[in-house]
């Protein structure tokens, strides 16, 4: 067995945020489903408690979302770098990652991407999180806040196209979040993702650690640019 090193991948505020967010959203999905389909679902004891749970969870998730944004943007200042795909990601990264998930993974090849604290996400994660965290979450939160204050915010409600439109939007966004959730949780089981999100540290086998092979790596390297070369690189490292 080779030596293991540990990378501190997920700082504690992010871990706390993430699990509040995750449990909040699961509760929101369950209570929301009962609110929309009261005749078929009774997960919470009554309609009223479903609504109260939904309102409370909605407020908690909104606050924790703001906290997440604040933490990455103001404290860590890594929001843009982490979440916005760059040119390379769009040109090659996405395709490469997709090929990995659809073919190479099944053939047993390792992931073309390895996470470091500054480049946590592979190009597909980046794009998905970008859509979820910058479009879905804010929109679902805003529509939710409008629905929570229909009378005081009547004018805003009308500006958004009437309450029916807001409800429809809120519902479809929630369905999208549920779709994301299924994919997200499944993909987390593909690699060693869950442990870092729980304890913060990721264990990496010594020889895979990027710093060990700086001369092979291309500058600005997020472990690989072209997948076959990565294989090549690994081979070379092993022979050295």
């Amino acid at each position: 067995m080779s030596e293991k090193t540990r990378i501190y991948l997920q700082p504690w505020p992010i871990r706390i945020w993430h699990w509040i967010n995750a449990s909040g959203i699961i509760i929101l999905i369950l209570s929301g489903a009962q609110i929309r389909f009261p005749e078929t679902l009774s997960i919470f004891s009554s309609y009223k408690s479903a609504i109260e749970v939904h309102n409370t969870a909605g407020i908690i998730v909104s606050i924790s979302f703001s906290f997440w944004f604040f933490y990455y943007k103001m404290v860590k200042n890594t929001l843009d770098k982490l979440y916005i795909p760059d040119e390379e990601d769009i040109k090659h990264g996405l395709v490469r990652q997709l090929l990995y998930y659809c073919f190479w993974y099944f053939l047993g090849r390792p992931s073309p991407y390895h996470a470091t604290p500054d480049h946590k996400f592979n190009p597909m994660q980046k794009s998905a999180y970008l859509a979820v965290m910058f479009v879905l979450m804010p929109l679902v939160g805003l529509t939710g806040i409008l629905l929570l204050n229909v009378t005081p915010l009547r004018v805003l409600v009308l500006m958004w196209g009437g309450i029916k439109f807001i409800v429809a939007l809120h519902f479809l966004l929630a369905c999208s979040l549920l779709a994301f959730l299924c994919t997200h949780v499944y993909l987390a089981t593909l690699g060693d993702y869950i442990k870092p999100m729980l304890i913060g540290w990721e264990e990496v086998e010594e020889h895979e650690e990027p710093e060990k092979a700086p001369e092979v790596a291309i500058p600005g390297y997020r472990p690989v640019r072209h997948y076959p070369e990565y294989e090549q690189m690994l081979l070379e490292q092993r022979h050295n």
Partner: protein
Amino acid sequence: MKPADLQKMSLLAKLALCAWALAGLIAQASAWGFSYGDQTGNNQACLSCHGKTGEVPKGTFIDPQRFTQTAHASLGCEACHATVPATHPDGNKVPKADCRDCHSGISEEYAKGLHAAKTACNGCHNPHLVQNPKDVSGQEINMICSNCHNGLEMTAKHGEWLPQSELHLRMLPCITCHTGAKDYYISMYIVKSKGDSRFGKQEVAEYADLKAIAGGRPIVSLIDTNRDNYVSLEELRVFNRTQKSLHLYGMMTPSTVSHKFEILDSRRNCSFCHTSGSGLMQTSFIAVPEADGTFLRVPVEKGAVLDALYAAPDFYMMGSTKNAKLNQIGLAIICCGLIMPVGHGFVRFLTRKNRKEKEHQS
């Protein structure tokens, strides 16, 4: 009570009965093409003074235009104010009928309710301005109650158990919860943004405002464009898209007005209203204001409140007015989310050997 009084009472009751019979006749007559106004020559004697603000003290003024439109006009003043002395006006009291004489059914029902001890019929009805429930918008019914029950206080009181109580009390006539009824319909009324901007403060649209917007044509034609006294979904959509400063708000109103005011425990259960499938949300009307202060009730095509977006964009009742098509789209989205776990997971299972082998190699 003195015997003379009793005699007077029974005389009054008989008179009232006669009047009622007469009213039946008149109602028949009006069905033949007369209107109440034509039959009220006997109101004229009294209205010559009481119909003019200058002639009588303010409290005794009766708006002749509005009175002659009411069902009571056909009875004539004397049916309720029997034997006004010739010396009138002399500061003496004039006899006034008891509503019970003619509305015995409703009076009995009312007497059984919890409100009977709080106020008499005239607390909610002005005998000279009675209206048929059909001609009243749900919003107006709440104005009756708010004469005695302060709106803010009610919002706070109901808010103790009712989520979003402000919204509820604005969108529901009080009687929807405080009287029993078998059936409900959605009564829509027109609101207007202040200052004609699309997003100004919302107020119930007045007859004069709407008249100005309609520009000489009858107000109904704003919505019922082909004037067939029926509003189709298409007409609703056109209205909602073209009338920028007007909106339709809806209220869930009992189809029959009972007078047994009560506190119904079933109304504490949100599912009384917030469930679908009962067909509750299928019937709707639009209340269009008329010159005399009443409302013209125009039926609306079925399904208006269930339409996804355009037919009634400002009316939504959680749980009950959800749109089936949107549910299907939502389901499709969720299924997309299952592609990875199910599809990928399956192939992953089939190829699990490949990954084991690689692990052994390294």
